[in-house]
């Protein structure tokens, strides 16, 4: 094999991608127009030849838009990863896309007349609003990189949940949102090109001008802070510019999120280590990759005779790249201080846990007796209560069990990785359950309750096996497993996005399930959930010694005599089981697994056993409350409990994050 000097590798990669994309473009052009007409079609199409007009006003601007959007997202991704010092940072982690998406949905519902004048301005405002919230939340923490990403993730989830709720409530009105949410590059004129080009040029100029402070920001926090306040301003400015550019892309073509996450990683892997190299190569490779991806979509379009949203396709194609990267990419040591996990117990745990138990009991009683009917609000007693109990009890039991299981999974995975951002949802297991359901729904054709259970279990099993196989190569290093989980989750999300964007009405059934509805739970299911929860939570309680030690890091663990490898594997398997069982009821959108462990620790439950118990109680409480609210707030329509948990819980969590510890 020829030994290529690292400096040339990005150039060689770029050349290869460029040739591939060009060749594919020639192919897609050839299927649309005879070659003798190409010059006239591209330069000056005659008005009366519709084929040439389509090439000039649709194929050509689409190609240019793919270049611009790809370059912009990769550029922003590189800058975000640099200034947040986090290889998982991307435009998505700031919630910009979700903000744009939700503002469009709300405008569609509330003020449709605004859309006529400023669809893209509305998306832009939504994206900026999301970032404004992120900044506000992380301001008091000095825009700490981790807090920014955490807040961004939460804002994104929050807006995503509102959008999902709107789609579920007004399913007939919102099919178009799916297209937007999946980033479609179809063009009918040059408006997106003329919109994006100056914005990309401006952002690139600013970043190049800021190259010195941005390079310094890539150093660790302590050294960077030593260099003065100026860097704080530089970080803020770079974030703002990146957000502006992302919002422009989203308002022009929708969400094409994976490019901003994957391309910077590819660039680094290709050998561009220094920041100014990455700043140059990222937009180039990003442009080429999206170009290649979009032309692939166009070529497939002719074969499978239906249009894929390019955004869903890039995620489908890009996620495996990340999965592969997990094995080799350099991961900077996480900014989490393990010491955080070992402040001594500050509160009397037992009275606190008793209080939480009573609260949970109270919530269950309210949920079982209070509701709405044709004639309005009612407390149900006597025979009416008996009749309703058959329907309400399974929901309450299943919600409690699912919440407790997801919360316990959250405790496990957060302690395992020493990362308070980790959650079972991020491990990819709940996405695996979704995959199983997709296969059942679209492969077999029907999705009864009896099919859902085995289908999702198989899906979780396969996903978990994939993630664990990846983790095994790296001795179950927490960061890599987290990354593998995110990658697997992204592949599955891309698949879901593609299916929903196709407008297939069956996708709505899937969405209902993913959003964590307890509607389909019957008595036996609820009983099974309760038994599973009891068994798995007991098992988790047996692991608490590991859970106390693992956050201290491998060195400490091993010196105490804990086999890191086996304790991690055991914790992981249990996490996966808890997640699989929990998300069967609570769906994949509920962030109980993130929220409940946070809340428990906020109350001062530090020791693993108390942390676990407190989180499980909080998890149950959140889900029972969410289920009840979902049943009554928009009566007779119902909001899935998982979504309500996100809608209510996330703002609460954001408020907690914003306060100083």
């Amino acid at each position, binding site marked *: 094999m020829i030994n290529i000097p690292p400096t040339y590798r990005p150039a060689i990669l770029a050349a290869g991608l460029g040739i591939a994309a060009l060749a594919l473009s020639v192919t897609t052009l050839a299927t649309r127009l005879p070659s003798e007409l190409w010059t006239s079609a591209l330069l000056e199409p005659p008005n009366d030849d519709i084929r040439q007009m389509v090439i000039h006003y649709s194929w050509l601007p689409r190609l240019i838009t793919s270049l611009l959007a790809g370059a912009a997202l990769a550029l922003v991704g590189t800058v975000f990863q640099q200034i947040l010092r986090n290889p998982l940072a991307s435009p998505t982690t700031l919630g910009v896309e979700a903000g744009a998406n939700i503002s469009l949905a709300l405008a569609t519902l509330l003020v449709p007349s605004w859309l006529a004048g400023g*669809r893209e301005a509305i998306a832009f405002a939504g994206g900026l609003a999301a970032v404004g919230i992120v900044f506000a939340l992380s301001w008091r923490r000095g825009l700490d990189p981790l807090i920014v990403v955490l807040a961004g993730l939460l804002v994104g989830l929050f807006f995503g949940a509102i959008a999902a709720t709107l789609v579920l409530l007004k399913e007939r009105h919102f099919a178009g949102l799916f297209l937007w949410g999946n980033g*479609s590059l179809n063009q*009918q004129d040059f*408006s997106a090109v003329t919109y994006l080009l100056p914005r990309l040029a401006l952002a690139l100029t600013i970043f190049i001008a800021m190259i010195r402070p941005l390079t310094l920001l890539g150093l660790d926090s302590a050294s960077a802070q030593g260099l003065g306040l100026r860097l704080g301003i530089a970080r803020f400015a770079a974030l703002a510019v990146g957000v502006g550019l992302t919002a422009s892309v989203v308002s022009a073509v929708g969400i094409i999120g994976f490019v901003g996450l994957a391309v910077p990683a590819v660039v680094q892997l290709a050998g561009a280590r220094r920041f100014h190299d990455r700043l140059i190569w990222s937009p180039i490779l990003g442009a080429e990759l999206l170009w290649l991806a979009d032309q692939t979509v166009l070529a497939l379009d002719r074969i499978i*005779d239906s*249009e894929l949203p390019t955004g869903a396709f890039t995620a489908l194609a890009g996620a495996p790249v990340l999965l592969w990267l997990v094995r080799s990419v350099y991961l900077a040591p996480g900014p989490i201080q393990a010491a955080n996990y070992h402040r001594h117990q500050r509160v009397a745990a037992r009275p606190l846990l008793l209080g939480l138990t009573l609260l949970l009991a109270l919530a269950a009683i309210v949920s079982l007796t209070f509701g709405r009917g044709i004639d309005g609000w009612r407390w149900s007693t006597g*025979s009416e209560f*008996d009749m309703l109990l058959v329907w309400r009890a399974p929901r309450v039991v299943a919600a409690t069990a699912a919440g407790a299981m997801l919360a316990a999974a959250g405790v496990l995975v957060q302690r395992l990785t020493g990362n308070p951002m980790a959650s079972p949802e991020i491990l990819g297991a709940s996405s695996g359950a979704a995959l199983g359901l997709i296969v059942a729904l679209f492969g077999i054709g029907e999705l009864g309750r009896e099919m859902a259970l085995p289908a999702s279990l198989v899906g979780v099993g396969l996903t978990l096996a994939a993630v664990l196989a990846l983790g095994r190569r790296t001795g179950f290093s927490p960061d890599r497993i987290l990354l593998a989980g995110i990658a697997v989750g992204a592949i599955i999300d891309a698949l879901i996005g593609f299916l929903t964007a196709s407008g297939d009405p069956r996708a709505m059934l899937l969405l209902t399930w993913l959003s964590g509805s307890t509607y389909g739970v*019957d008595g036996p299911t609820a009983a099974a959930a309760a038994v599973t929860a009891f068994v798995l939570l007991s098992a988790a309680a047996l692991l608490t010694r590991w859970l106390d030690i693992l956050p201290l890091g491998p060195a400490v663990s091993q010196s105490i005599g804990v086999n890191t490898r086996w304790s991690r594997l055991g914790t992981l398997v249990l996490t996966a089981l808890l997640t699989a069982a929990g998300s069967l009821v609570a769906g994949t959108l509920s962030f109980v697994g993130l929220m409940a462990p946070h809340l428990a620790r906020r109350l001062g439950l530090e020791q693993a056993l108390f942390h676990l118990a407190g989180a499980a109680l909080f998890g149950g409480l959140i889900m029972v409350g969410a289920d009840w609210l979902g049943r009554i707030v928009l009566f007779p329509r119902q909001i899935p409990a998982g979504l309500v948990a996100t809608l209510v819980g996330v703002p609460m969590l954001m408020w907690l994050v914003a306060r100083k510890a």
Partner: protein
Amino acid sequence: MRKNRSTTVVGSDARLSRRTFGQGLFISLALGNTGAIAAEPRRIVSLDFGLAETLLEIGVVPVGLTAADDWNDWVAEPRLPTSVVNLGGTFEPNVELLLELKPDLILLTPYLAGLSDKLRRIAPILSLPLYDGAGDPLKRATEAARHLGRITGSSAAAESLITRIDATFARVRERLRPVSTMPVCIVQFMDARHVRVFGAKSMFQDVLDRIGLTNAWTRETNYWGFATVGIEALATTADIRLLRLAQADDYIRFSQGPLWRSMPFVQRGRVTALPPVLMFGALPSAERFARLVDAQFAPAGVGD
């Protein structure tokens, strides 16, 4: 305490379901299969717009309907009586409201098969296919109308509905004969750059066949008979008409630049907006679509 429970289907089945799962399953299957549907159900609930509009046309007013608040935007005709109780979301009909309504029959389509076991515990169910991916929705809708007529004792009304619709199709076909050589393309705008275009397996396709028009869209369509495509996919050299389903999409301002203006149907002024008509409907919607097409094309169409 439990002895107080009423002895309706609801109560007895619900009590059984508290026992073993197998027993409950057996009972609910038995209930569903042994024709527990009342001789002439009076309190019918529909979980599908298409079945609901068919009921209304044969003179039976359902007591409840899911997503009833969306009716006027998407179905428009026949009007939905105000007595019909809104049962909430399409995919999760409100169980507690269903219990309160005490229906003697729940109508659904195979699309909601996942809810069957649950619904059987409330009342007998009847699942009638309208769209199942195999096509022929008009034929399915006709069968559904007959079936609904038979079980509600309104067979005569169902037959006269079918006859009336056949007559409408025949009349419209005759009136459109002068313009029948021109294919039509039926679209619904999704956003500024995408449309749904209806083709094979859609109700609109079946109606076009009956009224003697050709569908300009011959490419593949999905389960429900449409494809989601970019607006540029509508470009064709053929001389066609574009029918735009203008429901709830007034806000969509799509690009009307050089490409749009160079499309033959735009150049020749052959773009028509239709009032709301249910795209996944049954016989009444099919008839309404035929009449709307007729109203747009027949009078001016001859001299177009």
